[in-house]
């Protein structure tokens, strides 16, 4: 048995299912939890590509910090429905609601499948033309050192600019949430 293929299939299934549930679930808290599992599955892909550092950062930043912030936003915004009892619905109603709606049911699914098919065709063309190799490059012995060297020499200025943008966003958020005349 091909363990790598099995792992890939598992991760892909987890990723697609949880990503689908993020947008179709009725509860925003469930969406946050599914989002966390989406990020974990993505970290699994990084791990399969032997990008250890990226996988760990993916979990640390996205599954840890970003999901925590999403959860915080949910808990701080005063919605009544997060502690209420879930709406009772039968299995058929649920399937109907998930796939039947023309706005966020079958139609987006068909569109997504179409886009995926087109992307696969394009990727095959690109690989066939020889721009990308379908074989992964040799795994780096120490990807952390390699990333750090690139980040702090070649890409130092873009790196610092990105941090400046984040700082500006943070200050902007504080100013926007503070009302006029309030300390």
């Amino acid at each position, binding site marked *: 048995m091909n363990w790598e293929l099995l792992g890939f299939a598992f991760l892909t299934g987890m990723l697609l299912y949880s990503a689908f549930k993020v947008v179709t679930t009725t509860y925003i808290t469930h969406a946050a939890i599914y989002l*966390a599992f989406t990020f974990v599955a993505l970290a699994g892909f990084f791990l399969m590509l032997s990008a250890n550092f990226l996988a*760990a950062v993916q979990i640390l930043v996205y599954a840890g910090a970003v999901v*925590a912030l999403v959860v*915080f936003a949910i808990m701080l915004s005063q919605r009544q429905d997060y502690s209420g009892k879930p709406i009772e619905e039968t299995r058929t109603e649920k399937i109907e609601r998930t796939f039947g709606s023309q706005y966020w049911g079958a139609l987006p699914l068909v569109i997504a499948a179409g886009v995926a098919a087109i992307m696969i065709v394009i990727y095959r063309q690109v690989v066939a033309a020889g721009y990308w190799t379908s074989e992964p490059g040799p795994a780096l012995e120490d990807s952390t050192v390699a990333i750090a060297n690139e980040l702090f020499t070649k890409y130092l200025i873009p790196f610092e600019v990105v941090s400046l943008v984040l700082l500006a966003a943070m200050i902007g958020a504080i100013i926007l949430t503070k009302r006029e005349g309030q300390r």
Partner: protein
Amino acid sequence: MPEWVMAIIKILIVLAFIGLNGMFLIWAERKVAGFIQARIGPARVGRPQGFFQLFADAIKMFSKEDVRPAAADKWVWWFAPVVFFTPVAMAFLVLPFGPNVIGLDMNIGLIYLAAVASFALLGVFMAGWGSNNKYSLLGAMRAGAQMISYEIPLILATIGVIMITGTLSTQGIVEYQVAHGWNIKTQFLAFVVFFIAMLAELNRTPFDLVIAESELTSGFFTEYSGIRWGMFMFAEYTNIFVMSALAVTLFFGGWASPFGLVGSVLIFLIKTYAIVFLIIWIRWSVPRVRIDQLMTLGWKFLLPLSLFNIVFTGLILLI
């Protein structure tokens, strides 16, 4: 022996260790609490000192009924203990118990630990929300605020050590200390920040607002019973061990000892349990802080101190 058999054996050893360590720490906590409060503590079940109380507790926990609240969000409630427990068990992969006694010596060991530790918050949130109980939800909200605030100084405090040793591998950090002496000599400030942030991450007194028995009736796991409650309890106590072991690895020389392999593992365990004892000691000696004091301490003192430590270490290394 094939590789996967070895892997399964290692996993079983870690799980057995988690079980024994959890049971032992619950007993030890009750004995230390008794000692500090000038009473005896559990003394009825077995000798010496009611030692078999821990087995009695474990059997009771396994055999209790697993009650699910009728209004709970079924799957979220069911899955929360698993999400909370798994990262704690995963942390054992990179803890260096001895020169070769380590699950996997990764070159990103510390980042791996930070990553798996950050995932525990999701378990807390799932438990708090899934229980559909106001105490649980309040506990989860407090946990969110507290764990985000204290994770930052916790990770920043380790950066000083990483700068000195020049490696992220836990084994590499210990090997550096074997050659150059304990890191606590040069990174005392980092240790102080790390220790305080560690107490908050573990939800231990004086930062136990998340659990707060007297006001929240143990917070996010109020609605759990039997073995599910036990999983939270084991995860909490294993987390204490993991964090203490990390502190020993980073600041107190890890397994460094002149007594060979067995001696190294013993030295490591003794140091770790000394820090665990310190944590228990603090729990029974210090009152709980208020939530505004908690936030002030985290953001206005620990964060600047850890940043100062990084800059200072950098300057020293440059000169």
